[in-house]
Protein backbone atom coordinates (compact mmCIF):
# COMPACT_ATOMS: atom_id res chain seq x y z
CA UNK A 1 0.00 0.00 0.00
CA UNK A 2 2.82 2.32 0.99
CA UNK A 3 4.60 1.52 -2.29
CA UNK A 4 1.43 2.25 -4.24
CA UNK A 5 1.10 5.62 -2.56
CA UNK A 6 4.72 6.46 -3.37
CA UNK A 7 4.11 5.40 -6.97
CA UNK A 8 0.99 7.54 -7.20
CA UNK A 9 2.89 10.49 -5.76
CA UNK A 10 5.61 10.03 -8.38
CA UNK A 11 3.07 10.10 -11.20
CA UNK A 12 0.98 12.92 -9.76
CA UNK A 13 3.05 15.72 -11.32
CA UNK A 14 2.82 14.00 -14.75
CA UNK A 15 -0.96 13.75 -14.50
CA UNK A 16 -1.13 17.34 -13.46
CA UNK A 17 1.11 18.39 -16.41
CA UNK A 18 -1.22 16.92 -19.06
CA UNK A 19 -3.43 19.74 -20.35
CA UNK A 20 -7.21 19.57 -20.13
CA UNK A 21 -9.48 19.95 -23.16
CA UNK A 22 -9.94 23.70 -22.88
CA UNK A 23 -6.30 24.24 -22.11
CA UNK A 24 -5.27 22.16 -25.12
CA UNK A 25 -7.69 24.06 -27.37
CA UNK A 26 -6.16 27.27 -26.06
CA UNK A 27 -2.65 26.00 -26.81
CA UNK A 28 -3.67 25.08 -30.35
CA UNK A 29 -5.19 28.52 -30.76
CA UNK A 30 -1.95 30.09 -29.57
CA UNK A 31 0.12 27.90 -31.89
CA UNK A 32 -1.73 29.39 -34.88
CA UNK A 33 -0.81 32.91 -33.87
CA UNK A 34 1.44 34.65 -36.41
CA UNK A 35 2.01 38.16 -37.65
CA UNK A 36 2.67 36.79 -41.11
CA UNK A 37 3.54 33.57 -42.87
CA UNK A 38 3.76 32.31 -46.41
CA UNK A 39 3.79 28.79 -47.78
CA UNK A 40 3.89 27.35 -51.26
CA UNK A 41 2.37 23.98 -51.91
CA UNK A 42 2.06 21.31 -54.54
CA UNK A 43 -1.45 19.91 -54.71
CA UNK A 44 -2.52 16.66 -56.32
CA UNK A 45 -6.16 15.61 -56.51
CA UNK A 46 -7.16 11.98 -57.00
CA UNK A 47 -10.80 11.23 -57.91
CA UNK A 48 -12.65 8.25 -56.40
CA UNK A 49 -12.10 6.31 -59.67
CA UNK A 50 -8.34 6.73 -59.23
CA UNK A 51 -7.95 9.37 -61.94
CA UNK A 52 -5.46 12.09 -61.08
CA UNK A 53 -6.14 15.73 -61.77
CA UNK A 54 -3.42 18.00 -63.12
CA UNK A 55 -1.07 18.81 -60.22
CA UNK A 56 -1.07 22.47 -59.34
CA UNK A 57 0.79 24.89 -57.12
CA UNK A 58 -0.66 27.41 -54.78
CA UNK A 59 0.73 30.11 -52.50
CA UNK A 60 -0.82 30.87 -49.14
CA UNK A 61 -0.10 33.92 -47.04
CA UNK A 62 -1.79 34.83 -43.80
CA UNK A 63 -1.75 36.40 -40.40
CA UNK A 64 -3.50 35.12 -37.33
CA UNK A 65 -4.00 37.64 -34.57
CA UNK A 66 -6.34 37.35 -31.62
CA UNK A 67 -8.78 39.88 -33.03
CA UNK A 68 -8.60 39.05 -36.73
CA UNK A 69 -7.35 36.22 -38.90
CA UNK A 70 -6.73 36.63 -42.61
CA UNK A 71 -5.67 34.27 -45.37
CA UNK A 72 -4.99 34.70 -49.07
CA UNK A 73 -4.56 31.80 -51.45
CA UNK A 74 -3.54 32.17 -55.06
CA UNK A 75 -2.81 29.75 -57.83
CA UNK A 76 0.76 29.75 -59.16
CA UNK A 77 0.66 27.20 -61.96
CA UNK A 78 -0.51 25.83 -64.36
CA UNK A 79 -2.58 28.33 -66.37
CA UNK A 80 -5.88 26.90 -65.11
CA UNK A 81 -5.18 28.17 -61.57
CA UNK A 82 -2.71 30.99 -62.22
CA UNK A 83 -3.95 34.41 -61.17
CA UNK A 84 -6.99 33.07 -59.27
CA UNK A 85 -7.13 34.51 -55.77
CA UNK A 86 -9.15 33.70 -52.69
CA UNK A 87 -9.05 35.88 -49.61
CA UNK A 88 -10.83 35.28 -46.36
CA UNK A 89 -10.99 36.70 -42.88
CA UNK A 90 -12.39 35.66 -39.59
CA UNK A 91 -13.06 38.11 -36.80
CA UNK A 92 -13.42 37.34 -33.11
CA UNK A 93 -17.08 36.35 -33.59
CA UNK A 94 -15.86 33.39 -35.67
CA UNK A 95 -17.73 34.09 -38.88
CA UNK A 96 -15.58 33.66 -41.97
CA UNK A 97 -16.01 36.01 -44.91
CA UNK A 98 -14.40 34.98 -48.20
CA UNK A 99 -13.99 36.47 -51.64
CA UNK A 100 -12.49 35.34 -54.92
CA UNK A 101 -10.97 37.54 -57.60
CA UNK A 102 -8.49 37.87 -60.39
CA UNK A 103 -7.90 41.58 -59.81
CA UNK A 104 -8.58 43.11 -56.37
CA UNK A 105 -11.07 45.61 -57.82
CA UNK A 106 -13.37 42.90 -59.18
CA UNK A 107 -14.19 40.63 -56.30
CA UNK A 108 -17.05 38.27 -55.73
CA UNK A 109 -18.13 36.69 -52.49
CA UNK A 110 -17.61 32.95 -52.04
CA UNK A 111 -18.79 30.46 -49.47
CA UNK A 112 -16.05 29.68 -46.98
CA UNK A 113 -17.13 26.01 -47.25
CA UNK A 114 -16.49 25.97 -51.00
CA UNK A 115 -13.81 23.62 -52.32
CA UNK A 116 -10.86 25.50 -53.81
CA UNK A 117 -9.50 24.71 -57.26
CA UNK A 118 -11.72 21.58 -57.52
CA UNK A 119 -9.81 19.97 -54.68
CA UNK A 120 -10.74 19.06 -51.11
CA UNK A 121 -9.07 22.23 -49.85
CA UNK A 122 -11.61 24.30 -47.93
CA UNK A 123 -11.00 27.83 -46.69
CA UNK A 124 -13.01 27.19 -43.53
CA UNK A 125 -10.70 24.33 -42.51
CA UNK A 126 -7.63 26.52 -42.92
CA UNK A 127 -8.83 28.81 -40.12
CA UNK A 128 -9.43 25.81 -37.82
CA UNK A 129 -12.17 27.78 -36.02
CA UNK A 130 -13.11 24.78 -33.89
CA UNK A 131 -10.36 25.63 -31.41
CA UNK A 132 -12.51 28.66 -30.50
CA UNK A 133 -15.63 26.64 -29.85
CA UNK A 134 -16.86 26.51 -26.30
CA UNK A 135 -17.36 22.76 -26.08
CA UNK A 136 -14.11 20.80 -26.00
CA UNK A 137 -13.75 17.27 -24.62
CA UNK A 138 -10.75 15.00 -24.28
CA UNK A 139 -11.09 11.46 -25.63
CA UNK A 140 -8.61 8.59 -25.55
CA UNK A 141 -5.03 8.79 -26.73
CA UNK A 142 -3.99 7.18 -30.03
CA UNK A 143 -0.98 6.51 -32.22
CA UNK A 144 -0.96 7.94 -35.72
CA UNK A 145 1.95 7.20 -38.04
CA UNK A 146 3.88 6.03 -34.99
CA UNK A 147 3.28 9.22 -33.03
CA UNK A 148 1.32 9.54 -29.80
CA UNK A 149 -1.60 11.94 -29.91
CA UNK A 150 -4.54 12.94 -27.77
CA UNK A 151 -7.98 13.08 -29.35
CA UNK A 152 -10.01 16.14 -28.56
CA UNK A 153 -13.62 16.57 -29.65
CA UNK A 154 -14.78 20.10 -30.42
CA UNK A 155 -18.48 20.69 -31.02
CA UNK A 156 -20.81 23.60 -31.67
CA UNK A 157 -24.53 24.25 -32.03
CA UNK A 158 -24.11 27.20 -34.39
CA UNK A 159 -26.84 26.59 -36.96
CA UNK A 160 -25.11 28.10 -40.00
CA UNK A 161 -21.98 26.02 -39.52
CA UNK A 162 -21.74 23.06 -41.90
CA UNK A 163 -19.21 21.44 -39.58
CA UNK A 164 -20.66 20.81 -36.14
CA UNK A 165 -18.14 18.48 -34.66
CA UNK A 166 -14.41 18.04 -35.09
CA UNK A 167 -12.19 15.30 -33.70
CA UNK A 168 -8.52 16.23 -33.69
CA UNK A 169 -5.76 13.90 -32.61
CA UNK A 170 -3.17 16.34 -31.30
CA UNK A 171 0.51 15.73 -30.75
CA UNK A 172 0.61 17.93 -27.69
CA UNK A 173 4.37 18.52 -27.65
CA UNK A 174 4.41 19.55 -31.33
CA UNK A 175 1.14 21.53 -31.05
CA UNK A 176 -0.04 19.83 -34.21
CA UNK A 177 -3.17 17.89 -35.04
CA UNK A 178 -2.01 14.72 -36.76
CA UNK A 179 -5.51 13.74 -37.84
CA UNK A 180 -8.61 15.93 -38.02
CA UNK A 181 -12.07 14.56 -38.73
CA UNK A 182 -14.87 16.97 -39.53
CA UNK A 183 -18.53 15.96 -39.06
CA UNK A 184 -21.82 17.62 -39.93
CA UNK A 185 -24.91 18.03 -37.71
CA UNK A 186 -25.91 14.37 -38.32
CA UNK A 187 -22.43 13.15 -37.43
CA UNK A 188 -21.73 12.29 -41.04
CA UNK A 189 -18.02 12.48 -41.85
CA UNK A 190 -17.29 15.39 -44.18
CA UNK A 191 -13.51 15.33 -44.44
CA UNK A 192 -10.46 13.75 -42.85
CA UNK A 193 -7.14 15.57 -42.79
CA UNK A 194 -4.09 13.45 -42.01
CA UNK A 195 -0.59 14.83 -41.59
CA UNK A 196 1.94 12.60 -43.32
CA UNK A 197 5.17 14.50 -42.77
CA UNK A 198 6.06 17.37 -40.50
CA UNK A 199 8.61 20.15 -40.46
CA UNK A 200 10.06 21.89 -37.46
CA UNK A 201 9.07 25.50 -36.97
CA UNK A 202 11.47 28.27 -35.91
CA UNK A 203 10.30 27.58 -32.37
CA UNK A 204 11.92 24.15 -32.07
CA UNK A 205 9.15 22.86 -29.80
CA UNK A 206 6.54 23.24 -32.52
CA UNK A 207 5.96 21.53 -35.85
CA UNK A 208 3.91 22.26 -38.94
CA UNK A 209 2.52 19.89 -41.55
CA UNK A 210 4.72 19.38 -44.59
CA UNK A 211 2.60 16.69 -46.21
CA UNK A 212 -1.14 16.52 -45.69
CA UNK A 213 -3.81 14.26 -47.15
CA UNK A 214 -7.42 15.39 -47.24
CA UNK A 215 -10.10 12.83 -47.99
CA UNK A 216 -13.63 14.10 -48.41
CA UNK A 217 -16.97 12.30 -48.12
CA UNK A 218 -17.11 11.62 -51.88
CA UNK A 219 -13.75 9.86 -51.75
CA UNK A 220 -11.77 12.63 -53.44
CA UNK A 221 -8.23 12.57 -52.06
CA UNK A 222 -6.16 15.73 -52.09
CA UNK A 223 -2.47 15.52 -51.30
CA UNK A 224 -0.79 18.74 -50.28
CA UNK A 225 2.96 19.17 -49.91
CA UNK A 226 4.59 22.36 -48.70
CA UNK A 227 7.79 22.99 -50.65
CA UNK A 228 8.67 26.49 -49.55
CA UNK A 229 7.75 28.69 -46.65
CA UNK A 230 8.53 31.71 -44.57
CA UNK A 231 7.43 31.98 -40.95
CA UNK A 232 8.28 35.69 -40.77
CA UNK A 233 6.60 36.80 -43.96
CA UNK A 234 5.96 40.50 -44.15
CA UNK A 235 2.41 40.98 -45.29
CA UNK A 236 2.13 43.87 -47.73
CA UNK A 237 -0.33 46.62 -46.82
CA UNK A 238 -2.55 45.85 -49.78
CA UNK A 239 -2.42 42.04 -49.44
CA UNK A 240 -6.03 41.87 -48.25
CA UNK A 241 -7.33 44.88 -50.15
CA UNK A 242 -9.83 42.64 -51.94
CA UNK A 243 -11.62 42.00 -48.64
CA UNK A 244 -11.90 45.74 -48.06
CA UNK A 245 -13.13 46.23 -51.61
CA UNK A 246 -15.80 43.60 -51.02
CA UNK A 247 -16.82 45.26 -47.78
CA UNK A 248 -17.12 48.64 -49.56
CA UNK A 249 -19.18 47.23 -52.42
CA UNK A 250 -22.92 47.66 -52.26
CA UNK A 251 -24.73 44.32 -52.20
CA UNK A 252 -26.18 44.99 -55.69
CA UNK A 253 -22.73 45.50 -57.16
CA UNK A 254 -21.45 42.09 -56.10
Amino acid sequence: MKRLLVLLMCFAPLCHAAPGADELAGLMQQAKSTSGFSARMNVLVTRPDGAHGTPFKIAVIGRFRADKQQLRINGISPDSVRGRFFAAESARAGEIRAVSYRTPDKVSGVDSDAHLFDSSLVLWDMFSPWWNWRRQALLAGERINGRECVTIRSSTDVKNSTVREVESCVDVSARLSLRTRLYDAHHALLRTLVVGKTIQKADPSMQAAKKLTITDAEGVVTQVEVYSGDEQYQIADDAFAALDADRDQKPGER
Partner: protein
Amino acid sequence: MNLFRFALDNLYRRPARSGLTVSAISLGIAAVVALTSIAWGFEASWQKANDARGTDLIVTRIASQNSMPSPFLAAKVQDALGRLPHVKEVVGLLSEMLTVSEEAPPAFVFGWVYGSYLWDHLRLIDGRWPADSDEPVVMVGSLASEILHRKTGDQVEIEGQVFKVAGIFESSAVVENGAVIMTLNRAQALTDKPGKVNFLNIKLDAGASEADLAYIKDQVKKTMPGFLAITSGELVGNNAIVRISKAMSNATILIATLVGALVVFNTMLMSINERTREIGILLALGWQRATIIKLVFTEAMLLSLLGGLLGILLGAGLAVGLEHLELMRGKIDAIFSIPFLFAVLGLSVLLGIFGGLYPALKASRLLPSAALRHE
Protein backbone atom coordinates in the same frame (compact mmCIF):
# COMPACT_ATOMS: atom_id res chain seq x y z
CA MET B 1 49.63 -28.93 -51.98
CA ASN B 2 50.04 -25.76 -49.86
CA LEU B 3 47.57 -24.49 -47.26
CA PHE B 4 46.19 -21.74 -49.49
CA ARG B 5 45.42 -24.16 -52.32
CA PHE B 6 43.88 -26.59 -49.81
CA ALA B 7 41.58 -23.86 -48.45
CA LEU B 8 40.63 -22.77 -51.97
CA ASP B 9 39.74 -26.34 -52.91
CA ASN B 10 37.54 -26.62 -49.81
CA LEU B 11 35.59 -23.57 -50.94
CA TYR B 12 35.33 -24.89 -54.54
CA ARG B 13 33.90 -28.14 -53.22
CA ARG B 14 30.82 -26.26 -51.92
CA PRO B 15 30.17 -23.73 -54.68
CA ALA B 16 26.56 -22.90 -53.72
CA ARG B 17 27.35 -22.17 -50.08
CA SER B 18 30.54 -20.28 -50.91
CA GLY B 19 28.71 -18.31 -53.61
CA LEU B 20 25.86 -17.35 -51.28
CA THR B 21 28.27 -16.29 -48.53
CA VAL B 22 30.27 -14.15 -50.96
CA SER B 23 27.03 -12.62 -52.30
CA ALA B 24 25.78 -11.74 -48.82
CA ILE B 25 29.09 -10.12 -47.89
CA SER B 26 29.36 -8.28 -51.19
CA LEU B 27 25.84 -6.84 -50.81
CA GLY B 28 26.67 -5.53 -47.34
CA ILE B 29 29.96 -4.05 -48.53
CA ALA B 30 28.26 -2.57 -51.63
CA ALA B 31 25.74 -0.77 -49.41
CA VAL B 32 28.59 0.58 -47.27
CA VAL B 33 30.56 1.79 -50.31
CA ALA B 34 27.57 3.34 -52.11
CA LEU B 35 26.10 5.13 -49.09
CA THR B 36 29.41 6.39 -47.75
CA SER B 37 30.63 7.65 -51.11
CA ILE B 38 27.33 9.44 -51.70
CA ALA B 39 27.34 10.97 -48.19
CA TRP B 40 30.92 12.20 -48.65
CA GLY B 41 30.22 13.34 -52.18
CA PHE B 42 27.17 15.30 -51.10
CA GLU B 43 29.13 17.02 -48.37
CA ALA B 44 32.13 17.68 -50.60
CA SER B 45 29.98 19.02 -53.42
CA TRP B 46 28.36 21.66 -51.22
CA GLN B 47 31.67 22.56 -49.68
CA LYS B 48 33.24 22.79 -53.12
CA ALA B 49 30.44 25.14 -54.22
CA ASN B 50 31.04 27.43 -51.25
CA ASP B 51 34.82 27.27 -51.60
CA ALA B 52 34.70 27.90 -55.35
CA ARG B 53 32.68 31.05 -54.73
CA GLY B 54 35.51 32.32 -52.53
CA THR B 55 33.30 32.66 -49.47
CA ASP B 56 35.23 32.82 -46.20
CA LEU B 57 32.30 32.93 -43.80
CA ILE B 58 28.58 32.38 -44.08
CA VAL B 59 26.11 34.15 -41.86
CA THR B 60 22.77 32.47 -41.42
CA ARG B 61 19.94 32.11 -38.97
CA ILE B 62 20.72 29.67 -36.16
CA ALA B 63 20.02 26.41 -37.89
CA SER B 64 16.81 24.55 -37.33
CA GLN B 65 16.44 20.92 -38.35
CA ASN B 66 15.23 22.04 -41.77
CA SER B 67 17.55 21.39 -44.68
CA MET B 68 17.68 25.06 -45.68
CA PRO B 69 17.86 27.86 -43.10
CA SER B 70 14.70 29.96 -43.10
CA PRO B 71 14.99 33.24 -44.95
CA PHE B 72 15.71 36.49 -43.14
CA LEU B 73 15.87 40.15 -44.06
CA ALA B 74 19.40 40.80 -45.28
CA ALA B 75 19.27 44.45 -44.30
CA LYS B 76 18.95 43.43 -40.65
CA VAL B 77 22.61 42.48 -40.37
CA GLN B 78 24.29 43.27 -43.68
CA ASP B 79 25.52 46.78 -42.76
CA ALA B 80 26.81 45.70 -39.36
CA LEU B 81 28.70 42.81 -40.98
CA GLY B 82 30.22 45.14 -43.57
CA ARG B 83 31.72 47.24 -40.76
CA LEU B 84 33.59 44.33 -39.17
CA PRO B 85 37.40 44.31 -39.70
CA HIS B 86 38.78 42.72 -42.89
CA VAL B 87 35.30 42.25 -44.40
CA LYS B 88 35.60 43.02 -48.11
CA GLU B 89 32.16 42.07 -49.38
CA VAL B 90 28.87 40.85 -47.86
CA VAL B 91 26.44 39.43 -50.40
CA GLY B 92 23.11 37.72 -50.04
CA LEU B 93 22.06 34.38 -51.45
CA LEU B 94 18.58 32.95 -51.73
CA SER B 95 18.15 29.30 -52.53
CA GLU B 96 15.06 27.20 -53.22
CA MET B 97 14.37 23.77 -54.63
CA LEU B 98 11.82 24.45 -57.35
CA THR B 99 10.22 22.77 -60.33
CA VAL B 100 11.80 24.20 -63.46
CA SER B 101 10.38 21.73 -65.93
CA GLU B 102 7.42 19.38 -65.59
CA GLU B 103 9.51 16.61 -67.18
CA ALA B 104 12.39 16.93 -64.72
CA PRO B 105 12.70 16.66 -60.93
CA PRO B 106 12.94 19.91 -58.94
CA ALA B 107 16.25 21.75 -59.24
CA PHE B 108 18.12 24.20 -57.06
CA VAL B 109 17.33 27.77 -58.01
CA PHE B 110 19.86 30.24 -56.63
CA GLY B 111 19.46 33.99 -56.44
CA TRP B 112 22.81 35.82 -56.29
CA VAL B 113 23.45 39.53 -55.92
CA TYR B 114 24.06 40.92 -59.40
CA GLY B 115 27.71 41.85 -60.03
CA SER B 116 28.91 40.26 -56.76
CA TYR B 117 31.96 38.01 -56.40
CA LEU B 118 29.68 34.94 -56.29
CA TRP B 119 29.51 34.94 -60.09
CA ASP B 120 33.28 35.19 -60.62
CA HIS B 121 34.09 31.46 -60.48
CA LEU B 122 31.53 30.46 -63.11
CA ARG B 123 32.72 29.87 -66.66
CA LEU B 124 30.38 31.01 -69.41
CA ILE B 125 29.99 28.26 -72.03
CA ASP B 126 27.33 29.87 -74.14
CA GLY B 127 25.24 33.06 -74.25
CA ARG B 128 25.78 35.96 -71.89
CA TRP B 129 25.42 36.97 -68.25
CA PRO B 130 22.35 38.90 -66.99
CA ALA B 131 22.56 42.53 -68.13
CA ASP B 132 21.31 44.03 -64.84
CA SER B 133 19.87 43.07 -61.48
CA ASP B 134 16.27 43.08 -62.71
CA GLU B 135 16.52 41.42 -66.10
CA PRO B 136 14.07 38.45 -66.18
CA VAL B 137 16.63 35.89 -67.33
CA VAL B 138 18.25 32.81 -65.85
CA MET B 139 21.64 31.21 -66.20
CA VAL B 140 21.50 27.43 -66.49
CA GLY B 141 24.25 25.09 -65.31
CA SER B 142 25.73 22.71 -67.89
CA LEU B 143 24.17 19.65 -66.26
CA ALA B 144 20.83 21.38 -65.69
CA SER B 145 20.84 22.36 -69.35
CA GLU B 146 21.05 18.65 -70.25
CA ILE B 147 18.44 17.56 -67.71
CA LEU B 148 15.98 20.33 -68.52
CA HIS B 149 16.67 20.19 -72.28
CA ARG B 150 17.13 23.96 -72.37
CA LYS B 151 19.71 25.98 -74.27
CA THR B 152 20.49 29.67 -74.63
CA GLY B 153 17.47 31.60 -75.89
CA ASP B 154 14.93 29.00 -74.66
CA GLN B 155 12.36 29.76 -72.03
CA VAL B 156 11.77 28.15 -68.64
CA GLU B 157 8.75 28.50 -66.41
CA ILE B 158 9.50 28.73 -62.70
CA GLU B 159 6.73 29.26 -60.16
CA GLY B 160 4.39 30.37 -62.92
CA GLN B 161 6.79 33.00 -64.32
CA VAL B 162 8.57 32.72 -67.64
CA PHE B 163 12.31 33.40 -67.85
CA LYS B 164 14.58 33.43 -70.86
CA VAL B 165 17.78 31.39 -70.66
CA ALA B 166 20.52 34.03 -71.08
CA GLY B 167 23.40 31.57 -71.01
CA ILE B 168 24.87 28.25 -69.95
CA PHE B 169 27.67 28.11 -67.39
CA GLU B 170 30.00 25.58 -65.90
CA SER B 171 31.20 25.39 -62.31
CA SER B 172 33.68 23.17 -60.51
CA ALA B 173 30.85 22.13 -58.16
CA VAL B 174 28.30 19.63 -59.42
CA VAL B 175 25.59 21.24 -57.26
CA GLU B 176 25.94 24.46 -59.24
CA ASN B 177 26.16 22.66 -62.59
CA GLY B 178 22.77 21.15 -61.84
CA ALA B 179 21.27 24.48 -60.79
CA VAL B 180 19.56 27.50 -62.27
CA ILE B 181 20.89 30.91 -61.22
CA MET B 182 19.23 34.29 -61.43
CA THR B 183 19.86 37.65 -59.83
CA LEU B 184 18.87 37.95 -56.17
CA ASN B 185 16.27 40.64 -56.98
CA ARG B 186 14.58 38.28 -59.44
CA ALA B 187 14.70 35.33 -57.04
CA GLN B 188 13.20 37.39 -54.24
CA ALA B 189 10.39 38.58 -56.48
CA LEU B 190 9.81 35.08 -57.83
CA THR B 191 9.50 33.48 -54.40
CA ASP B 192 7.72 36.44 -52.81
CA LYS B 193 10.54 37.00 -50.35
CA PRO B 194 11.40 40.66 -50.88
CA GLY B 195 14.67 41.66 -49.22
CA LYS B 196 15.20 38.15 -47.87
CA VAL B 197 18.14 35.74 -48.15
CA ASN B 198 19.03 32.32 -46.73
CA PHE B 199 22.70 33.17 -46.34
CA LEU B 200 24.97 36.18 -46.30
CA ASN B 201 28.32 35.31 -47.83
CA ILE B 202 31.32 37.15 -46.46
CA LYS B 203 34.54 37.59 -48.40
CA LEU B 204 37.48 38.77 -46.35
CA ASP B 205 40.47 40.72 -47.61
CA ALA B 206 43.85 39.10 -48.22
CA GLY B 207 45.20 40.28 -44.86
CA ALA B 208 42.62 38.36 -42.80
CA SER B 209 44.00 35.67 -40.53
CA GLU B 210 42.41 32.73 -38.69
CA ALA B 211 42.24 34.96 -35.62
CA ASP B 212 40.26 37.57 -37.59
CA LEU B 213 37.89 34.85 -38.74
CA ALA B 214 37.38 33.75 -35.15
CA TYR B 215 36.86 37.37 -34.07
CA ILE B 216 34.13 37.91 -36.69
CA LYS B 217 32.39 34.69 -35.63
CA ASP B 218 32.53 35.84 -32.04
CA GLN B 219 31.20 39.31 -32.88
CA VAL B 220 28.25 37.84 -34.80
CA LYS B 221 27.45 35.59 -31.86
CA LYS B 222 27.63 38.48 -29.38
CA THR B 223 26.01 41.30 -31.31
CA MET B 224 23.56 39.61 -33.69
CA PRO B 225 21.22 37.43 -31.66
CA GLY B 226 19.70 34.57 -33.60
CA PHE B 227 22.48 34.62 -36.21
CA LEU B 228 25.50 32.44 -36.65
CA ALA B 229 28.73 32.94 -38.62
CA ILE B 230 30.23 29.66 -39.81
CA THR B 231 32.68 28.42 -42.39
CA SER B 232 31.39 26.52 -45.40
CA GLY B 233 32.68 23.27 -43.85
CA GLU B 234 30.73 23.90 -40.66
CA LEU B 235 27.63 24.82 -42.62
CA VAL B 236 27.76 21.64 -44.64
CA GLY B 237 28.49 19.60 -41.51
CA ASN B 238 25.36 21.06 -39.89
CA ASN B 239 23.18 20.35 -42.90
CA ALA B 240 20.40 17.96 -41.95
CA ILE B 241 20.69 15.98 -45.21
CA VAL B 242 24.45 15.55 -44.75
CA ARG B 243 23.95 14.45 -41.15
CA ILE B 244 21.21 12.01 -42.11
CA SER B 245 23.23 10.51 -44.95
CA LYS B 246 26.28 10.16 -42.68
CA ALA B 247 24.19 8.55 -39.96
CA MET B 248 22.71 6.18 -42.54
CA SER B 249 26.13 5.23 -43.85
CA ASN B 250 27.41 4.62 -40.28
CA ALA B 251 24.36 2.50 -39.49
CA THR B 252 24.90 0.53 -42.70
CA ILE B 253 28.55 -0.09 -41.80
CA LEU B 254 27.47 -1.42 -38.41
CA ILE B 255 24.71 -3.64 -39.82
CA ALA B 256 26.88 -4.88 -42.68
CA THR B 257 29.66 -5.76 -40.22
CA LEU B 258 27.32 -7.68 -37.96
CA VAL B 259 25.50 -9.48 -40.77
CA GLY B 260 28.74 -10.19 -42.65
CA ALA B 261 30.43 -11.63 -39.56
CA LEU B 262 27.38 -13.77 -38.80
CA VAL B 263 27.23 -15.06 -42.39
CA VAL B 264 30.93 -16.03 -42.34
CA PHE B 265 30.49 -17.51 -38.85
CA ASN B 266 27.53 -19.61 -39.98
CA THR B 267 29.23 -20.79 -43.16
CA MET B 268 32.45 -21.75 -41.44
CA LEU B 269 30.70 -23.43 -38.53
CA MET B 270 28.62 -25.57 -40.89
CA SER B 271 31.69 -26.36 -42.93
CA ILE B 272 33.58 -27.46 -39.80
CA ASN B 273 30.68 -29.65 -38.68
CA GLU B 274 30.49 -31.33 -42.07
CA ARG B 275 34.24 -31.87 -42.16
CA THR B 276 34.71 -33.19 -38.62
CA ARG B 277 36.01 -36.55 -39.86
CA GLU B 278 38.26 -34.87 -42.41
CA ILE B 279 39.76 -32.63 -39.69
CA GLY B 280 40.16 -35.72 -37.49
CA ILE B 281 42.12 -37.45 -40.26
CA LEU B 282 44.32 -34.36 -40.76
CA LEU B 283 45.03 -34.26 -37.02
CA ALA B 284 45.74 -38.03 -37.01
CA LEU B 285 48.14 -37.50 -39.92
CA GLY B 286 50.10 -35.12 -37.76
CA TRP B 287 48.70 -31.71 -38.67
CA GLN B 288 49.34 -29.17 -35.94
CA ARG B 289 46.33 -27.54 -34.25
CA ALA B 290 47.75 -24.16 -35.36
CA THR B 291 47.68 -25.39 -38.98
CA ILE B 292 43.97 -26.29 -38.62
CA ILE B 293 43.29 -22.78 -37.26
CA LYS B 294 45.21 -21.28 -40.18
CA LEU B 295 43.21 -23.40 -42.65
CA VAL B 296 39.83 -22.28 -41.27
CA PHE B 297 40.96 -18.66 -41.08
CA THR B 298 42.26 -18.77 -44.65
CA GLU B 299 38.90 -20.08 -45.89
CA ALA B 300 36.98 -17.41 -43.93
CA MET B 301 39.31 -14.66 -45.17
CA LEU B 302 39.09 -15.83 -48.77
CA LEU B 303 35.30 -15.69 -48.60
CA SER B 304 35.19 -12.27 -46.98
CA LEU B 305 37.97 -10.82 -49.15
CA LEU B 306 36.26 -11.97 -52.33
CA GLY B 307 32.94 -10.62 -50.98
CA GLY B 308 34.68 -7.35 -50.14
CA LEU B 309 36.23 -6.96 -53.61
CA LEU B 310 32.95 -7.72 -55.36
CA GLY B 311 31.11 -5.45 -52.92
CA ILE B 312 33.44 -2.54 -53.69
CA LEU B 313 32.85 -2.96 -57.42
CA LEU B 314 29.11 -3.32 -56.92
CA GLY B 315 28.93 -0.35 -54.54
CA ALA B 316 30.92 1.87 -56.87
CA GLY B 317 28.68 0.85 -59.76
CA LEU B 318 25.59 1.54 -57.67
CA ALA B 319 26.79 5.02 -56.66
CA VAL B 320 27.77 5.93 -60.23
CA GLY B 321 24.42 4.58 -61.45
CA LEU B 322 22.54 6.69 -58.89
CA GLU B 323 24.53 9.74 -59.96
CA HIS B 324 23.21 9.30 -63.47
CA LEU B 325 19.65 8.61 -62.38
CA GLU B 326 17.43 11.42 -63.69
CA LEU B 327 16.11 12.11 -60.19
CA MET B 328 19.59 12.48 -58.66
CA ARG B 329 21.59 14.07 -61.44
CA GLY B 330 23.32 17.24 -60.35
CA LYS B 331 22.57 16.57 -56.70
CA ILE B 332 25.11 13.92 -55.81
CA ASP B 333 28.71 13.52 -56.76
CA ALA B 334 29.97 10.27 -55.22
CA ILE B 335 33.55 10.34 -53.95
CA PHE B 336 35.72 7.22 -53.81
CA SER B 337 38.96 7.71 -51.95
CA ILE B 338 41.64 5.02 -52.18
CA PRO B 339 42.20 4.96 -48.37
CA PHE B 340 38.44 4.46 -47.91
CA LEU B 341 38.33 1.57 -50.36
CA PHE B 342 41.27 -0.04 -48.56
CA ALA B 343 39.47 0.52 -45.26
CA VAL B 344 36.42 -1.27 -46.69
CA LEU B 345 38.64 -4.12 -47.78
CA GLY B 346 40.08 -4.12 -44.25
CA LEU B 347 36.55 -4.29 -42.92
CA SER B 348 35.83 -7.34 -45.02
CA VAL B 349 39.02 -8.98 -43.69
CA LEU B 350 37.82 -8.20 -40.17
CA LEU B 351 34.54 -9.94 -41.03
CA GLY B 352 36.58 -13.02 -41.91
CA ILE B 353 38.55 -12.83 -38.68
CA PHE B 354 35.51 -12.36 -36.44
CA GLY B 355 33.37 -14.82 -38.33
CA GLY B 356 36.09 -17.47 -38.51
CA LEU B 357 37.43 -17.14 -34.98
CA TYR B 358 35.09 -19.52 -33.14
CA PRO B 359 34.85 -22.14 -35.94
CA ALA B 360 38.67 -22.17 -36.20
CA LEU B 361 39.09 -22.68 -32.45
CA LYS B 362 36.37 -25.33 -32.44
CA ALA B 363 38.05 -27.22 -35.26
CA SER B 364 41.47 -27.06 -33.59
CA ARG B 365 40.10 -28.45 -30.31
CA LEU B 366 38.72 -31.60 -31.91
CA LEU B 367 40.19 -34.84 -30.62
CA PRO B 368 41.29 -37.02 -33.55
CA SER B 369 39.72 -40.15 -31.98
CA ALA B 370 36.35 -38.39 -31.41
CA ALA B 371 36.43 -36.73 -34.83
CA LEU B 372 37.05 -40.04 -36.60
CA ARG B 373 34.02 -41.56 -34.84
CA HIS B 374 31.84 -38.65 -36.05
CA GLU B 375 29.12 -39.66 -38.55
